[in-house]
């Protein structure tokens, strides 16, 4: 297991270097002045310009710039936002909110996907199966911002079941609507995976043995079929994480949830290039870290992975 952990961490090194380099390269090797370009049609004040030039070490050759940038990144110096607050401080303030929203969304998504996928798999080809197929297809097609607005208009504004924006009050009940919207945008892949695995598991020998022993369906389905179908759905949540990050950016922006995604959303909308770059870098690094974590979790759950 230790060997596997070391190998997986070593594999991540080129990915971390590559992704940060790619982002840095995209921003700082474009034609023209990178700092002016990041501001779009606005012009930064000379003080801010000098500060950014110093922060990104623009007087050095490109590779040295990148090296110094990496050093800053790993010593926790992520630069400052437009309002002068350090990115690290903004992160520590907003991250708990996003973590809460994401956990709520994943919990809802997981439960709905497992239950719907289980029943669809058990009733393969029947009405319920086809119904979930259609619902899944629609959910897969609705862009997340459309889903947000539909929920905001119908559920919050028209029927008044929830507040249309979250604001400072990040209690569970207040964040339920954005969490449900986020979950709805994620659940199709998990549900399909669950359905497929249930169909596969149900025809396995150990399930037939359980039935042959005389166990009733109400015991075989939860204990033998359900438990053995869960692993792929758990690991799929890692693949979902990329969708979740983009989804959280849009959802937090539209519902005004004071999280990391909202900060990025506001920065994008206002064309605040340096903040966008800092936050995207942090998100990509988080994505890489989560993927490693899930791979390790998978290795714990399934010993075959370790020796592959």
């Amino acid at each position, binding site marked *: 297991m230790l060997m596997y952990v070391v190998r997986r961490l070593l594999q991540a090194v*080129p*990915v971390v270097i*590559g*992704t940060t380099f*790619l*982002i840095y390269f*995209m*921003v700082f090797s*474009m034609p*023209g002045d*990178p700092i002016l*370009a*990041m501001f*779009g*049609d606005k012009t930064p004040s000379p003080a801010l310009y000098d500060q950014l030039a110093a922060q990104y070490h623009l007087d050095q050759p490109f590779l040295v710039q990148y090296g110094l940038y990496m050093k800053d990144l790993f010593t926790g110096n992520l630069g400052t936002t437009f309002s002068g607050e350090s990115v690290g401080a903004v992160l520590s303030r907003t991250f708990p909110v996003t973590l809460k929203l994401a956990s709520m969304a994943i919990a809802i998504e997981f439960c709905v996907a497992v239950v719907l996928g289980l029943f669809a798999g058990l009733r393969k080809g029947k009405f319920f199966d086809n119904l979930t197929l259609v619902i899944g*297809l*629609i959910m*897969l*097609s*609705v*862009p*997340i*911002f*459309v889903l947000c*607005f*539909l929920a*905001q*208009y119908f559920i919050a*504004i028209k029927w008044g079941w929830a507040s249309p924006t979250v604001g400072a009050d990040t209690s569970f009940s207040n964040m339920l609507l954005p969490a449900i919207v986020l979950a709805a945008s994620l659940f199709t892949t998990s549900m*399909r*995976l*669950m*359905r*497929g*695995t249930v*169909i*596969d598991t149900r025809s396995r020998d150990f399930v037939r043995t359980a039935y042959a022993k005389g166990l009733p369906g109400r015991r075989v389905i939860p204990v033998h079929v359900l438990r053995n179908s869960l692993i792929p759905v758990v690991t799929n949540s890692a693949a979902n994480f*990329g*969708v979740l*990050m*983009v989804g959280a*950016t*849009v959802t937090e922006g*539209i519902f005004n949830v004071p999280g990391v995604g909202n900060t990025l*959303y506001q920065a*994008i*909308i206002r*064309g605040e*290039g340096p903040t*966008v*770059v800092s936050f*995207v870098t942090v*998100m*990509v690094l988080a*994505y*890489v870290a989560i*993927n490693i974590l899930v791979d390790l979790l998978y290795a714990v759950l399934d010993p075959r992975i370790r020796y592959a």
Partner: protein
Amino acid sequence: MPKPEHYVAPFDEDAVEVDKIKLDEKPSNLWRDAWRSLRRRPLFYISLAAVAVIVLMALFPTLFTDVAPNDDCHLEFSNAGATEGHPMGFTKRGCDVYARVVWGARTSLAVGLLATLISGVVGIIMGSLAGFYGGWVDSVLSRIGDIFFSIPYILAAVVVMTTLSEYRSVWTLAFAIGGFAWASLARILRSEILRVKSGDFVMASTATGRTKFSTLISHVLPNSITPVIVYLTLSLGGAIVAEATLSFLGVGLGSEVMSWGNDISAAQTSIRTAPMTLIWPSIFLTTTVLAFITLGELVRDALDPKARARG
């Protein structure tokens, strides 16, 4: 010991259906089978019709509306409801919603198709070289693929479009999306080629004097293209969503370009007073994506019947 009795069918008995060989039918192959199974699905015709309407809208918007989407705006109609000749009402700036929605199809489709094309070309090149040549080529290309795979492509496109804010066009947007969306395709194609390249026909091809590259192009690639086609059909919907999301975030095409994402973004401030201004472009966007994704899933079912069972 008595011999076991064998049943011998009398000559005049008709052969059972499965035993009959239809000599007059064309030999079956993957594509003909796929087409036959597609033809039986009513959903196929519905989504094909929807796609046809969208394509017509993109190519000839004047067939659907005579109203100019951008120049024929009257502020006195700001957020007004539907009237004669304006079935979907007016936007905040007093432009005809229906005309804008019709003209918006062009942007979505152009960016979606171009982005898919770009990610397809890059993905096919990277995946086939990595899978077929193996060794250090595979190591290098697969590591590059890992890097691109680790960046959610919408976030990457946000960074590109923020940096390129002065050069916004259909092309830069398509490159920003397609240039980062190819990694999964390369992975799929690589594993498919690894499976195909051990076949005898590959060895036969090199044995008869073809170069490796020529074998790759004329034998290996055509035999591993099925999952690529399935993936590309499905990702067309994703590319359209990406364009709309970027436009919605204000880093897509400029606000003067008709785009469903732009229109939804502009309508969000009046969601309480004029929700339909927001809902109409949403319906068109969702229907378009739904049509393309349904088409992609039907093509996948037809080309790989086991896929649906696997989930």
